[in-house]
C-alpha cells in the first residue's frame, strides 16, 4: 500500500448536479491511486459521470460507492450506483443506443457499459436501481 493514499471504500451522495461533479472527482482520485492508464481513467470517469447523472435524473438521487478491488493478479476500481427511484421497466430498451425518456442523447447507460470491463444492473420497478461497474488495471 502506498503511504498517504486511503484505498478504503468511499461513498458520495448524489442529490444535485454538483454531486455529479464530486463523484467524477472521487472516481478520478481512486483510478489514479490504482494506477489505471490515462485512457482507462478517462473511460471510467466518463462512465461514472453518465451513471451518476442517471441516478440523479431518473432515480431521483441516490449514492455512489467507490472501492478498490483485487483479484490476485491485478487491481481495479468498482463503483456501485444505487437509487430508490422508479426502476427501469424495460431494461433491454434502456440499454439501446439512442433510447431516452429524459430528453438526453440516450447514450448514458449503453455508452457507460461500453466504457467499463464489467457492468451489472439490478432493477425492480417501484423499488430502485443498482448498477455496478468495474474497470481493471492492465
Amino acid at each position: 500500500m502506498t503511504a498517504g493514499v486511503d484505498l478504503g471504500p468511499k461513498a458520495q451522495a448524489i442529490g444535485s448536479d454538483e454531486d455529479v461533479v464530486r463523484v467524477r472527482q472521487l472516481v478520478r482520485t481512486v483510478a489514479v491511486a490504482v494506477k489505471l492508464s490515462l485512457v482507462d481513467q478517462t473511460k471510467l470517469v466518463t462512465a461514472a459521470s453518465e451513471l451518476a447523472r442517471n441516478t440523479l435524473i431518473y432515480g431521483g438521487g441516490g449514492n455512489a460507492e467507490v472501492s478498490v478491488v483485487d483479484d490476485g493478479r491485478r487491481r481495479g476500481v468498482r463503483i456501485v450506483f444505487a437509487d430508490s427511484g422508479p426502476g427501469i421497466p424495460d431494461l433491454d430498451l434502456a440499454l439501446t443506443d439512442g433510447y431516452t425518456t429524459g430528453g438526453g442523447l440516450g447514450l448514458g447507460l449503453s455508452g457507460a457499459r461500453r466504457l467499463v470491463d464489467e457492468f451489472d444492473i439490478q432493477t425492480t420497478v417501484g423499488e430502485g436501481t443498482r448498477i455496478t461497474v468495474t474497470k481493471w488495471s492492465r
Partner: protein
Amino acid sequence: MERVPVLKIGDILLVSIQIDMSDQTAVTLQEDLAERIVATGAHGVIIDITALDIVDSFVGRMLSTIASISKVLDAETVVVGMRPAVAITLVELGLSLNGIRTALNVERGMELIAATREDDLGVDEAEGAESGSAATSA
C-alpha cells in the same frame, strides 16, 4: 454556481474551460455565449477544452448545441485542444459531435475561422471590387 468566462479577441469569442463544469454551469455557458455573439457581432467562437479531462454526453451535446446556435447567429464555432484520451473515450461512448469543427490548438482554430470568413467574403468581394486577391485570381 461557477461561471465560465467568455473573452473577446478581435471578432472572435474565446472560451477556455478550466473547471469541472456542473450541468447547470454548462447550460449557463451556452446561454452566455449566445448573448455575447449577438452583443459583440462576433463571427467566430473558439472553445478551448485543453483542461477538460473528460467530455461526457452532456458536455458533448452542449458543444454541438453551441455550434448550432452560433451558426444561426452567423458565427463559426471551433473546438480546440481535445486530449487524445478524451477523443478515444468519446468515440467509444458513441458520441459523434455532429456539426462541430475541431482544431488542434487555439492558434489553428483562429486560422480556421479566418480562412472560413475569407472564403465566405471572397465571393462577395469578387463581385464588387476590382482589386484584391479574390478579384485578381479570377
